[in-house]
């Protein structure tokens, strides 16, 4: 694809149809069948949705979209954004109140929804009177379906749109009233899609497992695949990831560390039970046989895990970014052996460290938060630097390293700052441990753990207590005295997590105090 021709999402879709035509772009399981959508069909169908919006709305609108990755979902997404309207992708795990709140706060007048949300429609119609047009992504009785829209409207001729126009509003996670709507322009998405080269090609097959409303999934699974002509297969449920890896035999996959870790444990458990098996062969088969690499993002990837994957000949590499930067700030390279870093800073992005915090400036940086100038001013400087809120540093080979989150810093009474992530990372790669959270309790640095339940079942709680106490002593030897862990707690249930499987920092303290 000729990068110079692509300035907007409209250009990207049109060019992908031009370059890759009838090649299959998307494969999804619908019932027992695999349904395919070509690059050309996605473009044509998006133009039909564009005409539908133009004729029914008569002006540019904001349209909210909720559901899982599907051809219908992407058609609604591109159909809206490529015709100069604004798409608002919402978290598919949202509850009714949050849904109504986000529809109102995004000024949405159109709502594309998965059939799972039908039970919430009465509340939406009652509480969000400005939403006038409802379109279901599947057939739902009494509602206009996307299939019906595609049948009833001919593809429109797109009017060119400015690269500086608003394409999407993406809400950052947060409870009602606190989440912020990140405004991304067409130029933001395109810069992030085009900033690197030779990452993938037409021979690649990608299995998309992450939630599509996140920009990490949208840019890196979908937009990069449109650019490179990569085929995307949809993982329909976390229940089916093992089957889908075998069915679709992907060559690349983007994951969050938690999924990578569980798959690793399963491979390890199998080979422990079958010592005669060749672990590399088992790992290769688990991933379908053709995988050339895993990209990890969204949370800290433990270097021990990367090493283990590399020992199976499956390179795993981690990148770094945030919704506010469309998202990539640094990117992973499968042939990079630097496991501690989050990859190298992407082309066209400047990074500087201010008081330990990472600041980024690039054409991918958002226009601001929707109707929230105070939050925008906190996040963006007047000359366009994005304060990421993450702490880290850059080395002389352009590799970026993250050491923690600024807002999570524990400020001790003596004024010393402690990054809880820095301490938590010292608990990685332990077979007796599943999860750890470090926080301050009554001014004391506390580590609370959720033990590995298999290990616990075999060895008992006393063994866990002993290992935990010994490990904390070891950790405390590596940090200055004020940063030492003073309290330890063991909990018997998993920590609460966000929909992207990150442990929530705000938790009820329920672990049994052991020291």
């Amino acid at each position, binding site marked *: 694809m000729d990068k110079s021709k692509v300035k907007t999402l409209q250009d990207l879709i049109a060019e992908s149809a031009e370059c890759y035509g009838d090649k299959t772009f998307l494969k999804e399981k619908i019932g027992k069948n695999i349904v395919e959508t070509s690059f050309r069909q996605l473009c044509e169908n998006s133009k039909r949705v564009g005409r539908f919006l133009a004729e029914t709305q008569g002006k540019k609108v904001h349209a909210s979209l909720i559901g899982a990755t599907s051809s219908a979902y992407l058609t609604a997404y591109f159909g809206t954004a490529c015709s100069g309207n604004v798409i608002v992708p919402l978290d598919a795990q949202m509850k009714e109140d949050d849904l109504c709140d986000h529809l109102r706060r995004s000024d949405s007048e159109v709502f594309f929804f998965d059939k799972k949300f039908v039970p919430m429609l009465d509340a939406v119609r009652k509480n969000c009177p400005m939403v006038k047009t409802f379109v279901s992504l599947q057939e739902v009785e009494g509602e206009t379906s996307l299939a019906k829209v595609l049948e009833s409207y001919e593809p429109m001729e797109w009017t060119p749109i400015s690269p500086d126009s608003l394409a999407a509003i993406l809400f950052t996670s947060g409870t009602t009233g606190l989440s912020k709507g990140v405004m991304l322009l067409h130029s933001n998405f395109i810069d992030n899609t085009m900033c690197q080269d030779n990452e993938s090609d037409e021979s690649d097959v990608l299995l998309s497992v992450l939630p599509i409303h996140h920009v990490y999934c949208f840019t890196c699974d979908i937009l990069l695949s449109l650019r490179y002509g990569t085929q995307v297969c949809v993982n329909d449920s976390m229940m089916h*990831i093992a*089957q889908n890896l075998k069915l679709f035999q992907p060559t690349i996959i983007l994951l969050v560390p938690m*999924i990578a870790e569980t798959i690793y444990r399963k491979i390890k458990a199998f080979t422990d039970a079958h010592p005669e098996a060749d672990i590399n062969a088992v790992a290769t088969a688990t991933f379908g046989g053709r995988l050339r690499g895993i990209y990890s993002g969204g949370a800290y990837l433990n270097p021990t895990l990367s090493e283990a994957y590399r020992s199976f000949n499956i390179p795993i590499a981690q990148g770094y970014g945030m919704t506010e930067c469309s998202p990539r700030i640094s990117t992973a390279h499968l042939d990079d052996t630097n496991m501690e870093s989050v990859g190298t800073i992407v082309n066209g992005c400047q990074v500087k460290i201010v008081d330990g915090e990472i600041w980024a400036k690039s054409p991918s940086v958002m226009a601001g938060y929707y109707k929230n100038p105070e939050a925008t001013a906190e996040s963006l400087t007047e000359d366009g630097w994005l304060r990421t809120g993450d702490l880290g540093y850059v080395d002389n080979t352009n590799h970026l390293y993250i050491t923690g989150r600024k807002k999570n810093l524990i400020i001790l009474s003596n004024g010393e700052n402690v990054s809880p992530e820095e301490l938590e990372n010292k608990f990685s790669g332990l077979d007796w441990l599943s999860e750890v959270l470090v926080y301050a309790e009554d001014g004391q640095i506390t580590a609370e753990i959720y033990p590995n*339940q298999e290990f616990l079942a075999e060895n008992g709680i006393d063994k866990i207590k002993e290992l935990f106490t010994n490990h904390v002593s070891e950790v405390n030897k590596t940090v200055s005295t004020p940063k030492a862990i003073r309290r330890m707690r063991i909990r018997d*249930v998993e920590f609460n997590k966000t929909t992207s499987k990150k442990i929530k920092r705000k938790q009820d303290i329920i672990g049994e105090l052991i020291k």
Partner: protein
Amino acid sequence: MFEQIKEIIVNYVDVEESAVTENSRFIEDLGFNSYDFMSFLGEVEETFEITVEEEDVLKITTVGEAIKYIESLK
């Protein structure tokens, strides 16, 4: 059905079949994590030719509840 479920369970977690009872809780007693449990249900779907709804997953905590759930779908 109990026998078949036990056979599947031991592929996911390191327990002996004899240790699995209808009262065993997947996470607390058998050591499943959330992802293992989802994968396990995927295999249950294939074995029993049923479709598990993701919304129902949270309602299943013990082996006995899983059996009842599967039977309700067959």
